[in-house]
């Protein structure tokens, strides 16, 4: 394992130029997830698209390159998606981190570049933070 495997160019691109950062005044659900060991933090909002089961994503975050890039990729993959569609990607991401699933670009898009993180257990939580936040928010929004 070397650093380049974890910090692939595509990850660094997302880190330096994150997609979809923003916030909205009124959301159907808003969650804040933190990684208490390092202080990484994301506040993620979801807003239901009228007449559909789909949600738009708004988020603000701070943290390491992996957590920032992962949130940017999450936005690309799941913005405007439903819980059912998104859950497949979340489960796939978790399985990839646990090395029980080969990366599938059709499901994760740029997220497959995060596969190198699975070699560093201390960083897995950084990669998953935003994905867990999204799932939490959408479930809350559906329940309300």
């Amino acid at each position, binding site marked *: 394992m070397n650093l380049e495997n974890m910090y692939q160019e595509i990850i660094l691109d997302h880190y330096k130029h994150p997609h979809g950062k923003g916030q909205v005044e009124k959301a159907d659900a808003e969650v804040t997830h933190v990684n208490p060991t390092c202080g990484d933090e994301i506040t993620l909002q979801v807003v239901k698209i009228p007449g559909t089961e789909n949600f738009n994503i708004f988020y603000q975050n701070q*943290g390491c390159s992996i957590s920032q890039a992962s949130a940017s990729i999450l936005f690309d993959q799941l913005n405007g998606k439903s819980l059912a569609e998104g859950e497949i990607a979340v489960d796939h991401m978790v399985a990839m981190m646990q090395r029980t699933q080969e990366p599938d670009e059709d499901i994760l898009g740029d997220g497959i570049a995060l596969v190198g993180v699975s070699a560093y257990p201390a960083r897995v939580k950084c990669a998953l933070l935003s994905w867990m936040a999204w799932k939490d928010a959408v479930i809350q929004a559906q329940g309300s």
Partner: protein
Amino acid sequence: MSKLDVAAIQADFPILSRKVRDGKKLVYLDSGATSQKPKQVLDAERDFYEQRNSAVHRGAHQLAEEATDAYELARKKIAKFVGAQPNEIVFTKNATEAINLVAYAFLNATLKAQFGKPLPDGAQKFILKPGDEILVTEMEHHANLIPWQELADKTEVKLRWIGLTDDGRLDLSNLAQLLNSKTKIISLTHQSNLLGTINDIDTIVKAAKAVDALVLLDACQSVPHMPVDVRKLGVDFLTWSGHKMLGPLGIGCLWGRSELLASMPPFITGGSMIETVTMEGSTFAAPPARFEAGVPMAAQAVGLAAAVDYLSAIGMEKVAAHEHALTELAIEELLQIPGVRIIGPTNTDNRGSAISFVVDGLHPHDVGQVLDNNGIAVRVGHHCAWPVCRRYEVPATTRATFYIYNDDSDVFALRDGIIAAQKFFGVSK
């Protein structure tokens, strides 16, 4: 004073000869989290298990006698190391438990007093009344903050704190207001685990004595690194952990003035800490036994005594001087890297070897990852001192800490690693 023979010291630490991350030399700069252990400590523990293992203070067989002797001899050595009497040293699981033990003495005394239950003589010092205050500082490790927040949450006591100056020191400008006749105890760190600041304990002790407040000193980052004498410090309690001073995991120490320990109700209760037991109630043993319920960690105590022997053979003055020189070099080298900022004092006056820093444009996690890739072990995050990060408006820091087995080459490796991280992420200045 002659210099430390670092090469000879390194040879005593088996772990330092292992390789990490595809064959790289290990540069261990995380002793502030836990130190490595010399073979003398490992041998002492192994010898206990191979020759004397049995439950101390129980049974009358030869092994039990020898185990008890080894445990109590360890207590004597450890007490002497900090200028204390053996019966003033309580062994705990770690320093966190030692601080909780004192916080719970307040809570338990207060509850027992409320219900009119018997208390040891002198327990008044631990009975809290509405309006009483507890004082901490903004630079505390969570271990010396949460127990007091919890105590305040369960009583009608107000928790107050001493703030910090921009250069990483305690702001003592309003000490007389914060430390007042309502203050029951001030609990503070001797040396900040994040900032490296060594606090002016003389001033605190004088101010506390003037208002009859107790002083607890969290010495986790001082006992391993400098000479510490409880009588000279003039504090009432001292807490520290064994594993940060070459000793085993799973043992911490509480030192308390004997008259105070004697006046405190127990914290964790059970076997060994009793005097008499009936179904209606029990009476408790004198300290330290009163605070050591259950079969104690004898092997760890023996290991910690071996660590004390090891450090004493070097001499704590020499340890402190060695770290001081490394700290000076590290500060100088880090400040020369454009984009690197030290969080904490940037001079070596009253400063220990914990050096926290941030690198412009890089998150500490990413700095730590590149360092790790070069074999350099540092700590990243908020270091269990989240309020300190908030105070200095950083989400986290990267922290290097130095000990007796580190030398100048480790400082240079750290410097080169930080520069490599800047290059890797394209944020060099």
